């Protein structure tokens, strides 16, 4: 035992100069960051000409077997505790507010059918969606107002945010579970008009052809506490 330890120490000492400094920098940046970092941000801190993607792959591999993993969410990179250790950590975690069944369902509809209007959500659920449900989702930061549908009444369209992907550990919207089956069974089109044949949900911030931008003030809808809003009006 003491032999092994000694050997490791020696190797460790020799290793130090050999392990690429870039890897140390990358690891320090990812450890320190408060939120996922994109490759551009990382590259800006690394020596010029470094292959960030290759380094990330190496680091991801190094961390794969550890208690902390390097994962990609919303196209960005972040370190997170290994999912199999959840049992260990949940005890001290402050469990986020549990969403109501209506909110979970609405969230899923927004995720899989976005950009989607309230009327379309109601059509799928077969029930009126209370204002509160959408407010709760806007408050979580997982759902956002995207724009307005170019249709009578110009209804607001909803979509998911990067925070949504980050919370559920999704690299992109295409990683949504069961998305392929939904597409296969033709259940994803929802209420989209036939001429807008976009069978996949998209959180692309660029507005679709049938969307137009929000007006100033629209964004307050879900973000300002309601009492202020009524006073204003």
């Amino acid at each position, binding site marked *: 035992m003491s032999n092994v330890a000694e050997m490791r120490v020696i190797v460790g000492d020799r290793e130090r100069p050999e392990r690429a400094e870039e890897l140390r920098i990358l690891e320090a940046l990812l*450890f*320190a*960051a*408060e*939120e996922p970092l994109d490759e551009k941000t990382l590259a800006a801190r690394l020596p010029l000409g470094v292959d960030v993607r290759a380094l990330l792959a190496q680091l991801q591999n190094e961390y794969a077997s550890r208690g902390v993993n390097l994962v990609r969410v919303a196209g960005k990179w*972040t*370190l*997170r*505790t*290994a*999912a199999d250790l*959840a049992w260990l*950590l*949940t005890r001290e*975690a*402050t*469990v*986020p507010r*549990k*969403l*109501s*069944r*209506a909110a*979970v*369902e609405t*969230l*899923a*509809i927004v*995720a*899989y059918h976005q950009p989607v209007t309230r009327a379309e959500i109601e059509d*799928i*659920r*077969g*029930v*009126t969606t209370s204002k509160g449900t959408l407010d709760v989702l806007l408050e979580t930061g997982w759902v956002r107002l995207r724009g307005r549908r170019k249709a009578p009444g110009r209804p607001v369209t909803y979509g998911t945010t990067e925070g949504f992907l*980050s*919370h*559920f*550990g*999704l690299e992109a919207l295409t990683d*949504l*579970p*069961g*998305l392929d*089956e*939904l597409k296969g*069974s033709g*259940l994803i089109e*929802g209420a989209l008009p036939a001429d807008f044949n976009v069978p996949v949900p998209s959180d692309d911030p660029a507005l679709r052809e049938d969307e137009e931008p929000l007006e100033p003030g629209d964004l307050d809808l879900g973000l300002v506490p309601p009492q202020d809003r009524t006073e204003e009006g």
Partner: protein
Amino acid sequence: MSNEDLPADELPAQSEFVELGSGETALVVDVEGFEGPLDLLLTLARQQKVDLVKISILALADQYLTFIEAARKLRLELAADYLVMAAWLAYLKSRLLLPEQPAPDGFSAEEMANALAQRLRRLESIRQVAEQLLTRPQLGREVFQRGQPEPIAEIKRPQWSATLYDLLTAYAMRRQTKARAYVRMSKRTVWSLAEAREAIERLIGRSFEWSTLDHYLLEYLVEPSQRTTVLASSFAATLELVREGRLEVHQHAAFAPLYIRARANAVEGAAAEAGNG
């Protein structure tokens, strides 16, 4: 049926149960627990235990209508949604039972039934994926980010700005002000009447002896360049003080020295004044 097969992560409070006595299916339903008529239909459909594609809409419509009938008998308050659905299903049922005929809105009963089945499938699939989504490890529940992130400190480097206009205005203003200030300085070489009067009053004071005005002036104001202005102002001030009866002035001949002295009663008066002050 039971609520357990609902893909919800949260079951509603079981506030009211309705038991239908018909017997063939012990249908226990909690009206409060349903998220609208479509949800109720989906629950009923599951009891057929067949793929939603092969569901019998006719049987489903019957079940739904039976449920609504029972609920109404028990005077349960049903939202309008449920009743609208009931009316529509009753209509659909009648259409399905009748021999096919062209419908006023262009849809056959078959198509309408398929559309309903499709809606049910869509709701069911969204529930399934919602459930799958929720079983993913969630941030802050199953996986955690760094508990003590080390935020990046910002070192602020000032980037100074000024315009050529600022520069020139400041320069012109300063040089100009300074130049004008010098002009004012040179004016001080002139002795004003007020200054002369104050000086004479101070110099003569309580002296009741005759003394020459020249004597005072030369003694205290020696700078030659100022002699003319001092003499002129002093003379004018002297005459004024004489007119006020505070000074006496005496001259032997033209261009002879001027003798001045304070008047006794005037000094007393002035002293009294000073005492009061």
